């Protein structure tokens, strides 16, 4: 079965769609989606595992926006597959924040 057929599933794990098109409100949502598909494509994790994490993240906080749960589930599968550790991600995020202060126009809040 192709990955997009799996994605077509209904229920809390199915990404929001409009007229059959995946709906992204911000570029990071699209990146999170693409990274997830790339990680699945690489064989390190499976759609099934990711979907289970996503379902549990969605269930954990019903009010949280869908793609935020998606990003959390992505971090879950990446860390549980031992691809990265949370501490590593923290450090890299800090490093990016340092760089960005001088390199682009993103407003830090």
């Amino acid at each position: 079965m192709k990955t997009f057929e799996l994605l077509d599933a209904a229920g809390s794990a199915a990404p929001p769609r409009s007229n059959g098109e995946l709906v992204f409100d911000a570029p990071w949502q699209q990146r999170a989606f693409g990274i997830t598909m790339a990680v699945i494509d690489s064989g390190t994790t499976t759609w099934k595992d990711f979907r289970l994490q996503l379902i549990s993240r969605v269930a954990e906080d019903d009010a949280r926006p869908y793609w935020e749960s998606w990003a959390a589930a992505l971090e879950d599968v990446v860390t549980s597959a031992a691809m990265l550790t949370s501490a590593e991600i923290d450090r890299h995020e800090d490093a990016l924040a340092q760089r960005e202060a001088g390199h682009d126009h993103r407003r830090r809040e």
Partner: protein
Amino acid sequence: MSAEHSGIAARVEALEGLLAQKGLIDVESVDRLIDHFTSDVGPLNGAKVIARAWVDAAFKQRLLDDGTKAVAEFGFGGPEGACLVTVENTPTVHNVVVCTLCSCYPWTVLGLPPGWYKSSAYRSRLVAQPRAVLREMGLDIQPEVIVRVWDSSAEARYFVLPMRPAGTAGMGEAELASLVTRDAMIGVARVEGPVA
């Protein structure tokens, strides 16, 4: 982190950067996958409609008679689906859709239009030189086949019913639908049979 969006954007960027740095993913494949899922999955609605028309002659007739009403059987509708007109490809006629004035497009069945559909090059040249434009897009139409160009408008949004490819006799609707692409339903590509 859920409290602020910029925090999540940075977190996702950090994840992607680290995974790429370690060679666990490459950024180009992320781009390619995003493109794949936003362009090939959106038109899944249309693909389901086409597959049904291929296996169910009565449905096909309803689709050709009144596209809007026929796709409503799938629950596809809304204001953008008004006046959906289905044009059928045959061994002697090839149909292709454009909107010369803007970017009218059958959203209900195809999702959002691709960038090239909105380009002035496609809009202005397709009517004058359909065979040349199609050839540039990788589709050679035999000289004996008539090419019909349909100009979409707010009144009529055209949608191509491609020919069912050979080698698909035993396939069910879901499998057939997976063969149908957005470009084939615009008329700039054929539906290819299953890869051996």
